[in-house]
């Protein structure tokens, strides 16, 4: 119980969120202490499951937590998620799972999507990370803002972030525009903000453009971390400075951009216990769900949402975290 209270206090302080109620705290303790191996929600309490990474989790190596079944086709992998694992939504993604490398193979991906979408029934998204770090040296065409900051060249650092953001917005517009031509059902902008505030703003602008291209698109914006790093510091979206925003404020930005669903992240502190982390995540995300006007899905993968940071995640923590966030933070999906 002490760990729950400490995690809640830390989350409330970080995100300016109210404390959980005494009933919430006691219920969380009951769920954590449940002696069962598998812990699930009660009938009627189930929510939607969305997933990043798509079908390539079967074929990928351990660097992406894949299981290396390289002999399985991409179509078969999607159909297995539909029919063997009974997922509520499906996703296709290129193995690099980032916009920049996707741009070079987008036509192959369009054909792959067209072929698979005719065989499956649930919402079938395409997914990719903005991953703006790929646009910086040594991999990309722009100078690295972090290197420039190290030599106190702040103006150039900010300028490079802005230029990279413009390029990313352009790439997003091109890719979603191409996919729109072949009836893409929706796009999952996943792990958003990993390169800081300029990337978050670029993604919001990319989603906004996609909404204009396709008013019927299903758009998910999922985050990479709980707060927006101010690597630029002054980036704004529709008049709001985004650096330092926590999930409740991030969800409002996603809503302004035209997104249908927001994916909230709370980072796991690997020096703390599962009860501490899940209490902190619940406190922060409960504020987000109470203020958001669009559905909120909690990111509950390795290292976020209270789930421990380890390659092979203990299954009992997965079910407990989901149950706690569904019952107490009232999330609309996982």
């Amino acid at each position: 119980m002490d760990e729950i209270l400490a995690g809640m206090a830390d989350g409330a302080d970080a995100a300016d969120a109210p404390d959980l109620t005494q009933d919430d705290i006691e219920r969380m303790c009951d769920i954590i202490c449940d002696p069962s191996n598998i812990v699930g929600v009660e009938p009627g309490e189930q929510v939607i499951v969305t997933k990043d990474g798509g079908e390539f989790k079967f074929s990928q190596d351990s660097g992406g937590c894949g299981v290396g079944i390289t002999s399985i086709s991409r179509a078969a992998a999607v159909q297995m998620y539909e029919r063997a694992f009974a997922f509520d939504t499906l996703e296709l993604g290129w193995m690099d799972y980032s916009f920049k490398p996707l741009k070079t193979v987008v036509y192959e991906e369009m054909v792959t999507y067209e072929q698979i979408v005719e065989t499956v029934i649930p919402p079938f998204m395409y997914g990719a990370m903005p991953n703006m770090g790929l646009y910086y040296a040594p991999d990309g065409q722009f100078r690295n803002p972090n290197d420039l900051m190290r030599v106190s060249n702040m103006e150039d650092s900010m300028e490079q972030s802005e230029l990279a953001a413009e390029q990313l917005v352009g790439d997003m517009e091109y890719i979603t525009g191409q996919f729109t031509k072949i009836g893409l059902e929706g796009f999952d902008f996943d792990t958003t903000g990993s390169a800081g505030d300029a990337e978050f703003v670029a993604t919001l602008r990319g989603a906004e453009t996609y909404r204009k291209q396709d008013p019927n698109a299903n758009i998910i914006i999922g985050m990479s971390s709980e707060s927006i790093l101010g690597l630029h510091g002054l980036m704004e979206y529709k008049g709001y400075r985004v650096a330092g925003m926590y999930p409740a404020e991030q969800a409002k930005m996603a809503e302004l951009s035209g997104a249908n669903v927001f994916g909230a992240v709370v980072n796991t502190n690997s020096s703390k216990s599962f009860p501490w982390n899940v209490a902190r995540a619940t406190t922060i995300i409960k504020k987000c769900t109470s203020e958001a006007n669009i559905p909120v899905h909690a990111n509950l993968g390795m290292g976020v949402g209270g789930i421990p940071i380890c390659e092979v995640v203990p299954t009992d923590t997965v079910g407990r975290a989901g149950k706690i966030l569904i019952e107490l933070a009232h999330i609309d999906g996982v």
Partner: protein
Amino acid sequence: MAVAHSLCSGMGGIRTAGDLVSRMELSKNMKIGKAKEYVAKKLEVDPFELTNEGLMREMREDLGIGVITAVPGIPKGTTAKMNIESLLGIKINSCEHSRSMLRN
């Protein structure tokens, strides 16, 4: 891990009505309670029954919206999704794309 979430917390996709509720969240911004109510009303069931596998298996076949097992001669893929469009009163992009490619 994702499979554990699907089992512990998910609605069950096309085993039940998970895909239908997903459609309403993703296309109409409906939160989970409202999305379940909307789908339940269209199916004329109680929201609690949306995850009842026995009930939903029969309903899905009757409505032609696809089932999880391999049954010959019933709607699958795009055909099932076109029936879902009519059932839920929504447009699905991939179905629109298929229709746009028909010559007549």
